[in-house]
């Protein structure tokens, strides 16, 4: 690969043809703030947050969508760059209902982080009126257009990453809106509720409904685990609150095998474990129903019954089916019980069906 050189904040750095200014800066350990940039999708330069100064260029350029070129002289942190970014943040803050106190994204908001970083203490522009209604009709995703900054990350995640092709840009000017289909609700559109749009939303425009009031971002602990649904084995972050309850699920970025992606079940169907239907105590059949029992009683009953049946009919009169959803260690234990304790190979599971 041929290497070429440019100047970044006065340093001479190498780059590879095809890299953007943002790529080069990131590789050199220089942070350029972004809002709309989404790693797996084509850069759009929509948010203008990553603007940098390039010697000889008429105006500031978007680092995400400008290719690095031989001999370029780039300044990522100049006074001019700062002024432009601050103005940009002020305009974004004025563009909607960015009231952090009641926003679910508080503490997990790129716009909030940038406003803090650039010391925006006052917004000089009047807040714009937002014509679009909030959508809260489904149990999974809340769409609050008054908080949307039209960065387009959700559109890219939906179309380029997940390729579900459910959302796009709609309307024009101050009426601009991210629309599903012909401006339908997610439910009525082609949306398949993978929730990738929520994961990439840098503000509070798209939030998980199930996570509301389950804890603020800074109160949640992240625990990595593997999804309990299909055989892909997606890696999840469980965002767990003080009570040990999952507040939300996101994908592990860069984790194998899913590389930050999830589907509807992996992201939203985690809360079956909290169902009131859960079995909570051993049960023993009595008449037409069941009665509660202690572990000692239930385990002794099964051990005695298995021993009796084994003695009377032989070990092959006992058969067992293991669970293809539970952990490896459970299946190991069950086959060990059948083979080494009961004395039969009558152990199977649903792989064949």
């Amino acid at each position, binding site marked *: 690969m041929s290497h070429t050189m440019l100047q970044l904040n006065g340093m001479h750095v190498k780059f590879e043809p095809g890299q953007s200014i943002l790529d080069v800066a990131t590789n050199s350990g220089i942070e350029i703030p972004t809002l709309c940039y989404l790693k797996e999708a084509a850069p759009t330069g929509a948010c203008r947050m990553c603007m940098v100064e390039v010697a000889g260029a008429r105006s500031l350029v978007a680092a995400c969508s400008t290719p690095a070129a031989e001999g370029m002289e780039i300044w990522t942190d100049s006074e001019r760059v700062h002024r432009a970014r601050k103005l940009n943040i002020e305009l974004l803050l004025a563009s909607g209902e960015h009231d952090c106190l009641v926003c679910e994204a508080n503490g997990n908001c790129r716009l909030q982080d940038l406003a803090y970083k650039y010391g925006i203490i006052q917004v000089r522009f009047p807040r714009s009126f937002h014509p679009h209604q909030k959508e809260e009709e489904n149990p999974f995703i809340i769409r609050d257009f008054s908080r949307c900054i039209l960065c387009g990350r959700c559109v890219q995640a939906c179309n380029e990453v997940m390729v579900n092709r459910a959302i796009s840009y709609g309307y024009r000017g101050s009426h601009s809106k991210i629309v599903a289909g012909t401006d339908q609700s997610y439910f009525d559109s082609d949306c398949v509720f993978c929730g990738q749009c929520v994961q990439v939303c840098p503000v509070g425009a798209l939030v998980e409904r199930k996570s509301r009031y389950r804890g603020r971002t800074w109160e949640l602990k992240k625990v*990595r685990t593997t999804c309990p649904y299909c*055989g892909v084995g997606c890696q999840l972050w469980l965002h767990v609150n003080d009570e040990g309850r999952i507040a939300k699920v996101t994908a592990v970025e860069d984790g194998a095998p899913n590389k930050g992606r999830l589907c509807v*079940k992996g992201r939203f169907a985690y809360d079956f474990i909290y169902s009131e239907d859960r*079995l909570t105590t051993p049960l023993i059949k009595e008449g037409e129903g069941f009665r509660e029992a202690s572990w000692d009683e239930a385990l002794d009953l099964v051990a005695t019954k*298995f021993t009796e049946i084994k003695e009377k009919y032989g070990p092959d009169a006992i058969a067992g089916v293991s669970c293809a959803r539970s952990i*490896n260690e459970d299946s190991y234990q069950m086959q060990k019980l059948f083979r080494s304790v009961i*004395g039969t*190979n009558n152990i*199977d599971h649903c*792989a064949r069906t």
Partner: protein
Amino acid sequence: MFLCIGTNMIEAHPVAATFLKNAVLNGAELIVVDPRKQPLVTFATLHVPINVGSDIAFLNGVMHVLITEELYDKEFVSSCCVGFEELKAKILEYPLERAGEITGVSEGMIRDVARRLAAADSCMLCYTLGITEHTCGKNNVMSTANLQMLLGNMGKECGGVNPLRGQNNVQGACDMGALPNVFPGYQAVINPDCRAKFEKAWGVSNLPDKNGLMIPQMMEGLKSGAVKAFYIFGENLANSEPDIAKVEEELSLAEFVVCQDIFPTETTRFADVIFPAAAWCEDDGTFTNSERRVSRVRKVSEPPGIARPNWWIFKELARRMGHEWQSDSSREIWDNEISVLAPNLMGVKYRRIEKDGLQWPCPDEDHPGTCFLHREGKFTCGLGQFNPVDWTPPAEVADEEYPFVLSTGRRLYQYHTRTQTGRADMDFLLPEETADISPADAVRLGIEHDELIRVRSRRGDVKVKAHVTEQVPPGMVWMAFHFRDACANWLTNPVFDPATQTAEYKACAVTVEKI
């Protein structure tokens, strides 16, 4: 290039499908072989709508073109495979005329598929239960392997025969020896050396030396009286097995049934004792995915009430039957037993899979894991063995009395018998079962979209809403098994592949009746 046969991965493996869709948008070719115009077809270069259960005739037809037009990978076949002459002899019995007649697709289309496959540098073949859930399931799989070997598409990163596993830990349950013929790590129970190894490890003598029963044989055993006690761990057999009426009769005949689950289910009704178990997130452990990747599962909360981890329940039962087991956590079970006893997993230890998991074979602790098998055409068993197979029709085909073919599968918004998704708001997205039928059949029978109809097979009948859709070809009904009331398994045929005992969920004959 991808050849997807019998896999509705956009619905059943949505995240895997996103990577395939990305590749297609980047210019990869995709051939979808499926009777239905399922969602993947939208992205396909070519959709090959073969008749239900005609996969082998199709694949043999494709191989006929490859062999007669000399388009196959001669070098790979001669240096890495055995049995080519036998394969060729069988394939020559499937000229395109015959293959076309059985599959219902044109000779030109079969030839087109073959030539495209031959022209591609490599092709990844993906399948799911559309291949295995047939009375000829094993032969279907053999046939896909024959094709990929013939094309020299084995041992490459973007090649191979790739089954997408239906549930999160089907691969792992197999690896752990929850199968009647093998110990953990696929060590045969009929092999005296393997038995000696496990006798020593487990401190027992006389481990049973003959293969045990597979699930359908267990069910038959309940009826014949050969099986008296049945221990069902985390399976809802009363909804998931074919022919629910038969399954429930068999379960009711058991002398003693133990169920271990997280919810009461249709199956726990038959239990004499129910053990309440810890669920996902309530225990530490590992799952193994379709890529043979062993990944960590972590505990974040306690089980409800006095429910306990499954491994603990088995350990306690063993103790009460006179066997003290040492390991006292999932980690100890894995690190001290499983990864010591299963050769392919010896390098997988909990400390190595804190972040991303490891793909087996991973024979030692310095091994990075194995992304794909049979590298450079060096098959695990030495040379790749062609297994010529004949097409056989489904056990039950449409006739005058039952003129429709019923095929079954899964839908995106639910999972199996809904024990989990039914308790996680997914009913909002899919509240009931439907019988998917073609617009042509709907018009012919005077059935409106959403109209309640009756679907009947020789086993039973269900009342279900008609879903009129272009996805389904005329003559077919397609249903899932997520909802008890209109569960496809009231209708499905309890016939099984003779080798694997996998049920023919994908084909039986039904009538569609206006009510």
